[in-house]
């Protein structure tokens, strides 16, 4: 009997410990078993000389989220050449690899085949719902070999675009004394993870919340066919009661005004119209500032309803006021696609596209191109180029090609000062992509290339010789300027 009692006592003693292993961590320094460092070696590009490359290295924080899976943010992951992981904040680095990266939602998952790396590491546990109001948040990371934990105070929930795309979703804002965060550091409360820090400006940090992350992890863990959707229409707050009255909406002011409904590129019909009043989204009432009451996050901008448990192609019921009566329309969420923007984000994980003809350098207009003007590119980049940002791509104009510079050669004499001109036509054919330009250059007009640009103060049209002179000049330019290829087109394929 005494032996039984001793065994029972042992079991009773072990069981709580076993159960504790399934519970969250009691102490902050236990985050050492879930937080790791990730190093991405990357190829970096000079968008002003898109053929030039250099190397760079980024250190990020990773969070063990499942067996053999470490999660981080997708910023500074693109064009990586090497991934290494380190646990414990010091010591040996282990080679890893990227499992997937999703720039639309700013998340990336890495792993390593090295068994020894996973020993002693345990997945973190996500917080369900929003952190309690007075909860003491901490931002955790490895720094100089020690696990740093900095206090953070919850500020608010907001809806913001992702740092790597224009996809809007709910985010937390916290205030912290931590410096240099924004590389995927986990924000924790007690033993749970609230989210990952994606951005820091001053003391303010923006955090991708756990619920959103879990939803995205689920999508990537499944058949990976699900993509985030978004609301493609524009709306304005309906704070002006006169506007609602003018539309005949009775009762207390509510809803938002639909102001602009671009054509859909996915072939779906537009079910909304300008001057509709959007009253509800999937049963959530929308107030005049465009907020709905989220069960987890409280008042939140309606954009989040496009991703809250939803995917591209899913149906969203919109309750609207139109032509004097309430009605419900079924809105099918379009898939968030970088190509829907006239000036797309990125591009990611591909070398910059360009095409050189006779010293004239053509590049697609992208955010990465504009960002070569630095953090303040929205003020410093050429006005006409940045004015394209925010416009939707259309079938008539799916993209923009810029003649960014002219590498001087006798072939292009007279044009060497031209730069940042928007190309409209080449040899009588409209040009919106480098592929179209390449095709057009194969068909010169009477032995000449005729290029037309968007109106500007210098040249709207230039003419250059064809009939072999262009190819000779191109070869000469490549040689003189040390350029390996005359063109890099979509997907990184070299010119044929």
């Amino acid at each position, binding site marked *: 009997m005494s032996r039984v009692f001793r065994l029972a006592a042992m079991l009773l003693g072990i069981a709580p410990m076993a159960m504790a292993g399934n519970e969250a961590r009691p102490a902050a320094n236990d985050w050492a078993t879930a937080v790791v460092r990730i190093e991405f070696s990357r190829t970096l590009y000079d968008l002003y000389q898109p053929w030039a490359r250099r190397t760079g290295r980024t250190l990020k924080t990773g969070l063990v989220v499942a067996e053999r899976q470490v999660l981080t943010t997708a910023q500074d992951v693109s064009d990586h050449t090497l991934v290494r992981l380190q646990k414990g904040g010091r010591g040996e680095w282990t080679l890893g690899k990227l499992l997937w990266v999703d720039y639309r939602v700013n998340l990336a998952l890495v792993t390593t085949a090295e068994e020894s790396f996973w020993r002693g590491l345990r997945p973190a546990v996500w917080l369900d719902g929003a952190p309690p109001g007075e909860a003491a948040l901490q931002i955790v990371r490895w720094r100089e070999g020690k696990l740093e934990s900095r206090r953070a105070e919850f500020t608010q929930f907001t809806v913001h675009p992702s740092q790597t795309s224009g996809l809007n979703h709910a985010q937390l804002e916290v205030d912290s004394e931590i410096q240099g965060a924004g590389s995927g550091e986990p924000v924790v409360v007690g033993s749970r993870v609230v989210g990952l820090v994606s951005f820091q400006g001053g003391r303010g940090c923006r955090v991708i919340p756990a619920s959103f992350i879990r939803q995205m992890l689920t999508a990537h863990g499944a058949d990976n066919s699900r993509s985030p959707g978004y609301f493609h229409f*524009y709306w*304005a*707050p309906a*704070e*002006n*009661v*006169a*506007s609602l*009255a*003018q539309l005949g909406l009775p009762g207390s002011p509510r809803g938002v*005004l639909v*102001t*602009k409904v671009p054509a859909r590129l996915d072939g779906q019909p537009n079910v909304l119209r*300008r*001057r509709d009043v959007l009253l509800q989204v999937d049963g959530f009432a929308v107030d005049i500032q465009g907020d709905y009451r989220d069960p987890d996050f409280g008042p939140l901008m309606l954009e989040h309803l496009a991703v809250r448990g939803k995917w591209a192609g899913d149906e969203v019921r919109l309750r609207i006021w139109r032509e004097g009566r309430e009605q419900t329309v079924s809105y099918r969420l379009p898939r968030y696609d970088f190509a829907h923007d006239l000036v797309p984000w990125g591009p990611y994980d591909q070398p910059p596209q360009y095409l050189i003809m006779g010293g004239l350098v053509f590049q697609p207009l992208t955010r990465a191109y504009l960002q070569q003007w630095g953090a303040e590119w*929205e*003020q410093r980049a050429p*006005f*006409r180029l*940045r*004015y394209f940002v*925010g416009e939707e791509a259309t079938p008539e104009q799916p993209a923009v090609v810029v003649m960014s510079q002219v590498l001087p050669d006798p*072939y*292009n*004499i*007279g*044009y060497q000062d031209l730069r940042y001109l928007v190309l409209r036509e080449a040899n009588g054919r409209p040009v919106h992509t480098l592929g179209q330009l390449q095709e057009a250059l194969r068909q010169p007009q*009477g*032995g*000449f290339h005729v290029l037309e640009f*968007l*109106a*500007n*103060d*210098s*040249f*709207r*049209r*230039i*003419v*250059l*010789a064809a009939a072999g*002179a262009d190819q000779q000049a191109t070869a000469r330019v490549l040689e003189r300027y040390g350029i390996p290829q005359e063109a890099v087109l979509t997907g990184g394929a070299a010119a044929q």
Partner: protein
Amino acid sequence: MPAGPLVTLPWPETKGFAGQLQTARRMHWYGSVLDGYSARSSFGEMHRCSNVCLWAYARRLVGFCKTLVTVGLVGWAVTSAGAAQPERSVVQIVVFRQEPDWTLPWRFDAVRPANGSGFVIKGRRLMTNAHVVSWARQILVRRFQDPRPYLARVEFAGHDCDLAVLTVEEERFFDGLEPLEFGELPQVRSTVVTYGYPAGGEEISYTRGVVSRIELSAYTHPGNRQALSVQTDAAINPGNSGGPVIQDDRVVGVAFQGIPGLENTGFFIPCPVIQHFLRDIADGRYDGTPQMGIQLAPLQNPAYRARLRLPDNDLGVRVDYIRPHSPATNLLQREDVILQIGDYPVGSDNKILFAGNRVSGKLAIQLVQCGEPVSLRVWRDGRELSVAVPVRWFDEDRAGGNQYDVRPRYYVFGGLVFTPLSRDYLRSAFQGAARGESRDGDAELTYELFFRPQEDPGSVRKEPIVLSNVLADSVNANWSLRSRALVDRVNGMRIECLEDVIRAFETNTNAFDLVEFGRSQMFECLDHAAAVQAQARILKNYNIPRDRQL
């Protein structure tokens, strides 16, 4: 005789001679006198003379020196008298100016004093810069060393060329004042003297420099114009503006601007521009500096020249663009090559040779008066032809440049302030914008004013209108848009000008006014009856004298 600085003439010392001539005015003819006497060789000869000849030579020497001194004194007197003349005809101008607030366009900023210079010209008038007297509420002029201020007024102002002509109400102002004569375009490397009343003192000031460069450059005052200007290293400082630049006793220019941060760099408006202005106002009206309405592009690429079948002679520029409704519309074609404008062959770099200087071909057009034709030698389809194109002032460019001496147009209804989009408005609005404020609306306004006319002239509104401000009142308290928004439609009417806005509101019979805005396609509404009722209250509360200025 030209005035000049004091110089020390080197003179070889000789045994028994008094010594060097310490000071003398350097005069052009003084050197020739010296050369004629061959002073050095004379003294050399003196050294070798015997004592018997010494007295004879000494007498000759004394006679020579007397002549020299006499000539020098006479020259001094003459140049002293000549140096005083330009000064006496240079005036100090004191202006009290008041500029409008373009975002609240019934208001004016505080009155501010400013100083400039001017000079007397024929016809008992004064010439100065337009920017000296723009927005003037009062103009006072002071004569050289005369304490009395005289009231003046602007007779003509050419804001596009930054010149103005003033009259003085008191006739006796001009008593004893000689008008300064105009000269020609000075040569580079030649010397000029500026006269004026710049900052740093109260009396007249002179600075001397050389002509460094002559070309077309941007005139700051209009903001969107280039014209002929002369760069000099003579100091031109605030207060010099409007003062004469003199060479050989003639006015060769009017000092007008500098470049902050650049040393020894001042600019003056040369006589070709001045003469154009004076000829223009001779009929009692200033028409302005004309344009042809075409954009020319250099034609230096061999392939392009070959395609146009042009000879390889570095002549000709290509018509790259013809503005709609310009005088050239039915006379020139895109791809025409302009070989000569008036008397001036045009180089492939779009420059002409003007008085020995290579300057932009635009000058050849600017020298013509509005309405007059400019003869062009044109290359088209492989052959030459002559075309005469009349030139005119382009009022369409007015809003894109700085405007002066016209009250901003506006209309206020329901607390909504509407005003035409202009460069002046953008400048005022951007200066007043809070840091971090959204600039999307600003970008749209910038595009509308400066880019749409070039890119899509068919869609340009005659006078784009901006919602400049929303003066808070209960009738508009809930408006989200508060300022810097381009108006697209009011009550369904597309807005082409301010009068459209007025008409749209005044003819509305619906319960609400609907205002729709540009790129964002946002819209806002007003309770029409409430807005009408609030009108008097708003005008009173905000001290607006009237609801419109047209």
